[in-house]
């Protein structure tokens, strides 16, 4: 008596899990809202702020405060400088999207399965833990990266249409384009894998979100330091940061893989 089953290849498993996760997420209005709402708010606020700055020039007092806060823009036309600064500030917020949006999806993809008691049948299939985690990680990361990139493109086009030369130069600066292309996926993976790692130890979605939310702190700090000119994101520091993120991503994924063991999940998750 033979079985029809085989040990499926990694691509098949990852594709199947991703498609299932996406179908499941699309049916969950809360998750869809959590994915789309933050980028929409940041996008609308960013475009609105640049447009407002274009319509209402800053007062002399505002300009002095601006120069004091951000020495990098000293010497620019005040109206240009304000728009450039606002446009850059919102770019930093775009870097926050990949740390916030996929976290909820990643946490739900593990704790949600646990709550619905769907993990045991899944773990009973001939699937390796690494493959399962990779699939869950990609299923959470891909939508967040796509949403962030789409929001950035819309922002880019909008600032190009309504913003000053300084604002356009700020949003099209090569280091920011590179940051969006390279850093967004790396930050997304960090957030996702951290979410999965936390989910293996915590039973409550809210607790996992609270802990996972800490991932935004270094991003915010780095962004503020960059805008205020305390830290200059040049080529060297960009490569250094990207390398550091790759290493952290690999380490966090490895830790999640160690923590996400069949036995732990089945015998300790009650």
């Amino acid at each position, binding site marked *: 008596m*033979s079985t*029809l089953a085989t*040990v499926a290849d990694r691509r*098949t498993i990852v594709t199947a899990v991703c498609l299932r996760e996406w*179908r499941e997420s699309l049916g*969950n209005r809360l998750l869809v809202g959590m994915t789309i709402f933050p980028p929409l708010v940041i996008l609308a606020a960013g475009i609105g702020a640049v447009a407002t700055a274009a319509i209402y020039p800053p007062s002399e007092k505002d300009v002095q405060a601006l120069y004091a806060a951000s020495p990098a823009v000293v010497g620019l036309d005040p109206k240009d400088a304000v728009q450039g600064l606002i446009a850059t500030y919102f770019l930093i917020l775009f870097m926050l999207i990949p740390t916030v949006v996929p976290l909820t999806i990643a946490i739900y993809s593990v704790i949600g399965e646990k709550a619905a*008691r769907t993990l045991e049948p899944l773990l*009973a299939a001939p*699937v390796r833990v690494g493959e399962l985690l990779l699939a869950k990680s990609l299923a959470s990361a891909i939508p967040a990266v796509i949403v962030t990139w789409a929001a950035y493109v819309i922002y880019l086009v909008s600032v190009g249409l309504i913003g000053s030369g300084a604002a356009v130069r700020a949003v099209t600066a090569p280091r920011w384009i590179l940051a969006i292309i390279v850093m967004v996926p790396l930050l997304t993976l960090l957030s996702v894998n951290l979410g999965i790692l936390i989910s293996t130890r915590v039973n409550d979605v809210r607790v996992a979100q609270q802990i996972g939310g800490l991932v935004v702190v270094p991003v915010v700090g780095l962004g503020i330091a960059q805008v205020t000119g305390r830290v200059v994101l040049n080529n060297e520091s960009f490569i250094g940061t990207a390398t550091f993120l790759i290493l952290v991503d690999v380490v966090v994924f490895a830790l999640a893989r160690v923590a996400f063991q069949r036995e732990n999940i089945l015998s300790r998750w009650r």
Partner: protein
Amino acid sequence: MGVVLRTEGLTKRFEHTTAVEDLDLEVREGEVFGFLGPNGAGKTTTLRLLCALIAPTSGRAEVAGYRLGHDNERIRASVGILTEAPGLYERQSARDNLLFFAALFGLSPAIARAQTERYLRLMGLWDRRTEPVATFSRGMKQKMAIARAAIHEPRIIFLDEPTTGLDPDAARTVREFIAQIRGEGRTVFLCTHNLDDADRLCDRIAFFRRTVIRIDTPAQLRAELYGHETEFRLLPSPRAADLECVRSIRGVREAHLENGSIVVSSGDPLVANPAIVQALVGGGAQIAYVTERRASLEDVYLKVVEGIS
């Protein structure tokens, strides 16, 4: 019949408890093997061990020809398991649930579609294949979970309480399914508290509490523990002389009066019963009927499992 599952000294200890201890077991290809024991006996842990979901602390096991701990993925590919909870993706349709698991078990899309249709029809769920599982009744979800466990045609299918909480119609569908699986030569490892199901379906039964207490066929267990009992209903009620007459017959182990009948336990009823009938009629008694008495599996269970405790 070859052996499809064998364990030797299989033991599983958790921090403070020993769930399975020194388990020696052999299950044959194509049999329905009942695994009976009280709550907390370690049945679910044993199932998880045999499905390579958790690792044993010590001991060895070979499942579907693969060694536990060495070929775990092949073991998982060769077995199917119905877990305690159906664990279905509730927002997704019945069809999508099965197709997903078929993909994980490496079935090609065409075979996956064919198997999905086959099992949904078998479980009477084909007409509702596009509906989200959340709209299904408990019985329908249980049937879905069984279909999922069988979609890849496993050599051994482990069923943990498959008929618990089901209405009679759904329970019958599940029993028919088990009979069909057995008819195809597959092995069914059935964990159940439903002793009626076990009696009807199982070729052999293991009574289990951390380790196997007894294994045998239901009929053999009954005969060994209770002997063969026959009830002789007399008209009018039996007299003391009738009882003495029966007791004096060769081969009769024990006889007593019970609600207007004489209940006789004998080593071989085919030899003893004709002699009893002859003696009673010869003594002037009128026999209304003669009935074979079968001890229920529940009696056997209680005697074995509760006897140990």
